[in-house]
């Protein structure tokens, strides 16, 4: 059973039943799921969670749908890596990487879509829909396929072939939309209002965003049932950033971990940095931007949770950095070369920002710090293709190999 009780407006606190609704009918503020925390506290133990499946559904008691009918393609419970090499380089003695590239469609979007799709099916929807430039489209297509639901996925007309294939393999109805970013946005918002479909990040968004909490649950469990001191999280809509902390808070509320004042820091690309810009200006009002960055999975110019991200930065004493496209590529390479993890451009944003914050002294050397890598690098190979060493090309002889290998420089020997 689920302990979810209501939807509640984050602004005026009006309550609504657990229906498909994403903004308050009165003030248009966002609504979010509330739970019976007394019930959770009485029924949920560390042992119960540890005995659950190796997926996000081990935290079913904290999610707004019944686990028995959940659409489970194995999202979640991804590795938490002690990043000793990268930590040494950055002067951080307790650095961890939460590697969410290992999800079924290789990004953290599987967490949010697993919950949204499950709740959508409970609510009687037969079609799942979304508008996406990549990761979300892949995940919606895969979950709909597994659930036997129809998927309708809207994509920009100029999306790279690799990203289109990453969705089309699952058999959705793919719709390429001509027009710029704003036009695609407005069309999809209108369509979401016109059709009785479950648009995962629109009318079932309150359930969708709950999936992100599971990153917080997992990190705490993997650290031996304790929250970290500091998190560095990429900010797109801001939902992930806000919900990871909600995960720590809910575990504390349920008595499963000690309360801790975890500092939450955000990472954005300079080409789409409404939250970082507002934070640097000391403002709680972000100005929407038209995105221009290689980190397309973070390219949200008008973030739904932008304001709440700024509130969280202020409340937790975190920082928000932004990094250029060149720094993003360097960040991707740094993570790969030090920890063997190939993250997508959003991962480059996180690592480059982590480096920036460490250099500025904004992360304590001994703080238990977790950096979140939310998608796999094979989704954005074009971003790094021109900055990597080309392979040696040789004839099929030992002499040819040795000549080419020696030519790499005096530091390289063939012995």
């Amino acid at each position, binding site marked *: 059973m689920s302990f979810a009780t209501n939807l509640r407006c984050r*602004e005026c606190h009006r309550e609504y039943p657990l229906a498909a609704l*994403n*903004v308050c009918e*009165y*003030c*248009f*503020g*966002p609504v979010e799921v509330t739970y019976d925390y007394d019930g959770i506290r009485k029924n949920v133990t560390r042992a119960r969670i540890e005995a659950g499946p190796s997926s996000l559904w081990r935290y079913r008691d904290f999610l707004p749908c019944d686990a028995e009918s959940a659409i489970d393609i194995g999202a979640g419970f991804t590795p938490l890596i002690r990043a000793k090499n990268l930590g040494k380089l950055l002067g951080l003695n307790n650095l961890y990487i939460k590697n969410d590239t290992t999800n079924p469609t290789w990004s953290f*979007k599987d967490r949010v879509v697993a919950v949204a799709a499950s709740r959508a099916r409970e609510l009687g929807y037969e079609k799942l829909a*979304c*508008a*996406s*430039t*990549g*990761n*979300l489209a892949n995940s919606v297509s895969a979950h709909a396929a597994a659930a036997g639901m129809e998927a309708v996925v*809207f994509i*920009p007309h100029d999306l790279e072939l690799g990203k289109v294939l990453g969705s089309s393999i699952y058999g959705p109805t793919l719709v390429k939309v001509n027009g710029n*970013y704003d036009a*695609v*946005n*407005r069309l*999809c*918002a209108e369509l*979401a209002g016109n059709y009785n479909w479950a*648009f995962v*990040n*629109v009318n079932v*968004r309150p359930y969708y965003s709950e999936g992100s909490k599971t990153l917080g649950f997992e990190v705490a469990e993997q650290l031996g049932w304790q929250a970290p001191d500091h998190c560095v999280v990429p900010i*797109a*809509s801001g939902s992930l950033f806000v919900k990871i902390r909600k995960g720590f808070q809910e575990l504390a509320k349920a008595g499963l971990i000690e309360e801790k004042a975890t500092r939450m820091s955000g990472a954005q690309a300079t080409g789409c940095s409404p939250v970082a810009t507002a934070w640097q200006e000391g*403002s709680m*009002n972000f*100005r*929407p931007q038209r995105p221009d960055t290689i980190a*397309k*999975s*973070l*390219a*949200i*110019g*008008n*973030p*739904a*949770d*932008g304001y709440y991200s700024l509130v969280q930065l202020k409340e937790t004493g975190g920082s928000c950095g932004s990094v250029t496209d060149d720094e993003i590529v360097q960040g991707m390479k740094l993570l790969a070369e030090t920890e063997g993890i190939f993250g997508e451009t*959003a991962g480059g944003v996180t690592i480059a920002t982590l480096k920036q914050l460490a250099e500025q002294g904004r992360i304590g050397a001994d703080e238990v710090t977790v950096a979140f890598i939310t*998608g796999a690098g094979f989704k954005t190979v074009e971003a790094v293709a021109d900055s990597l060493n080309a392979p040696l090309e040789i004839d099929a002889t030992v002499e040819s190999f040795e000549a080419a290998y020696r030519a790499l420089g005096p530091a390289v020997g063939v012995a």
Partner: protein
Amino acid sequence: MSVKRVKFTFPEDLIREPLIYNLGHAFRVITNVRMADVDEKTGWVLLELEGDHDEIERSLAWAQSKGVRIDPVQGDVVEG
């Protein structure tokens, strides 16, 4: 009759303009402000527009031509 919910974001140079009032006079559209935050540098307003669908679209195009940024109330819908 159609109803549309939008977010207006005003740049600094439009903060002193009675833009929503003017929109209501120039077009047969009822404007209903639900939430807002305006300071001396920038501001946003969440509002509901009610009227003929095409008239609402014309009013939004007019506001956009004045320099207002118009978004869905729930933020960007296209995600990565």
